[in-house]
């Protein structure tokens, strides 16, 4: 195949498909076993310094925040993070000093809420390096290639732009149509983390609402940690197998974490905590504020339960549930 052009971005997360097949054969257990553990154990066992990390959900939606805070608490370092519309999660990891490199589809911004002071400061000062650019489809098709066990997938985006020039993609001539097409290299993160509404002890995880690219990402990553609002019985999963998005044999750890996406949204369960996101954006405007944030909400708390207390406890959480479920607030008491 004739190579017409290639992006100069760094190729991150790529592996030879045969090497990965061998690794899967040797390391991914096909046994149905209980994988429940604490968040702290899961991060200790499955996240390593220097890892390439990808996080499920989208933007501020269905993000495994308990794991993100725990990565900061355990002071993991030198991570490369998939900026696959990574917003609050990436911000917290950058602010916590965990990240040295990012491949960017969408990062350093909070959509309508504005740009991220913390992420921008890190990139503009050179403390955190953008190693390559891509797009949202570009990223998810990289995961698709890995999930399929093939070296690349073909696409028709990116072409002709600087996004292509700073990507790890190549432009080749399609042997059938004769037209130029884009090849997106497979991407196998070292570890991927997800938050789901329900999962059994073996790791069979179900998602309500949009799946984003969690289907592909879970199958592309070498190690997978799933946090879940609720651990449910194996029987409940088997009654509705069509709802299962992530199968047990790709999962390494299952942690039960109610309200585990806060301040992100959990579809059908609770809404974004806009107040808390705004607080983070305000505090992270300066280095000192960022440190204060971490000592108040991350390093200064024992665990996620204590964090939930600090952000307002059950009163706040119930209010977020009301908004998500379109329930009108109770009328004022006489």
């Amino acid at each position, binding site marked *: 195949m004739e190579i017409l052009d290639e992006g100069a971005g760094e190729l991150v997360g790529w592996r030879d498909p045969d090497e990965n097949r061998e690794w899967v054969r040797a390391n991914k257990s096909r046994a149905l076993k209980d994988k429940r553990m604490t968040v702290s154990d899961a991060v200790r066992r499955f996240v390593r310094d220097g890892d390439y990390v990808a996080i499920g959900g989208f933007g501020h939606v269905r993000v495994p925040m308990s794991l993100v805070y725990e990565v900061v608490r355990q002071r993991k370092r030198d991570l490369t993070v998939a900026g696959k519309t990574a917003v609050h999660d990436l911000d917290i990891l950058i602010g916590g000093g965990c990240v040295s490199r990012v491949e960017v589809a969408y990062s350093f911004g909070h*959509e309508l809420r504005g740009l991220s002071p913390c992420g921008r400061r890190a990139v503009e000062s050179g403390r955190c390096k953008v190693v390559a650019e891509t797009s949202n489809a570009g990223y998810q098709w990289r995961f698709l290639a890995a999930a399929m066990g093939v070296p690349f997938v073909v696409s028709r985006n990116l072409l002709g732009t*600087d996004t292509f020039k700073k990507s790890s993609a190549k432009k080749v001539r399609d042997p059938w149509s004769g037209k130029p097409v884009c090849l997106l290299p497979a991407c196998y993160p070292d570890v991927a983390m997800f938050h789901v509404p329900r999962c059994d002890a073996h790791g069979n995880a179900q998602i309500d609402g949009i799946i984003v690219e969690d289907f592909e990402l879970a199958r592309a990553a070498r190690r997978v940690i799933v946090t879940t609002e609720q651990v449910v019985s194996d029987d409940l999963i088997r009654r509705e197998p069509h709802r299962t998005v992530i199968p047990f044999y790709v999962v390494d750890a299952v942690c039960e974490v109610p309200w585990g996406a806060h301040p992100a949204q959990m579809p059908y369960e609770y809404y974004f905590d806009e107040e808390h996101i705004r607080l983070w954006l305000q505090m992270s405007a300066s280095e000192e504020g960022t440190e204060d944030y971490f000592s108040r909400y991350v390093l200064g708390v024992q665990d996620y339960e204590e964090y939930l207390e600090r952000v307002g406890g059950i009163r706040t959480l119930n209010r977020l549930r009301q908004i998500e479920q379109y329930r009108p607030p109770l009328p004022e008491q006489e």
Partner: protein
Amino acid sequence: MATTYTETELLACVASHMLADNKSVFVGTGLPMIAAMLAQRTHAPNLLLIFEAGGVGPQVPVLPISVGDSRTFHRAVVASTMHDVMSALQSGYVDYGFLGAAAIDAYGNINTTVIGDWARPRVRLPGSGGANDIGSLCWQTILILRQDRKKFVERLPFITTPGYLYGPGAREAEGLPAGGGPYRVITQLGVYGFDEETKRMALVARHPGVTVTEIQSNSEFEIIIPAQVAQTEPPTGSEQRILREIDPTGLVVGR
């Protein structure tokens, strides 16, 4: 009846008028969402909204904060995957793509990645997100941004998302799907299209009270001015009322 309206209301209404009923639109955050929701509540009840995180065909109750917000799949026909919706885009099912931008050039290329040098940027912006995919793969891209000489530029520091790249035939030569590209650009001053011959930006309509001189002086590159320039329709009272219903807290529309 003469009414007063804000710039944002005007942009939202002008944008919504471009979306025809029974067509599909891939919607980005902010004004594009407002415009698509307004169209759905007025002349285009069967406008098919598609969101990049997987929401397909929702009846959006109130302005979503994110393109992944559960409101993007409220009473939807599918809560799907990114692979599915991006593939729908690539295989030709999406009529309009609706984007905001930080800056644009005469060919409708846009930058949302960086100001200054890429390796050591003066300002790091969020990057493509789904914008490159939408600008590459939908049939007609509609862009909304504020216009001034810093945003309508001769040369972008970074082309995040393709317009007509460097002229006629460039998209196809690079391998992008044939027949796509920017259709309209909407700013606070007017509405622009692209000249058939050169694929450079040309004025289509100016907003009430805006002069052609203002339009030209707020662009670093020369805008093609045709002999006939239409005037846009200002928002009606009923459109303004619907906008407030869509965005009750004034997140985009303003209070």
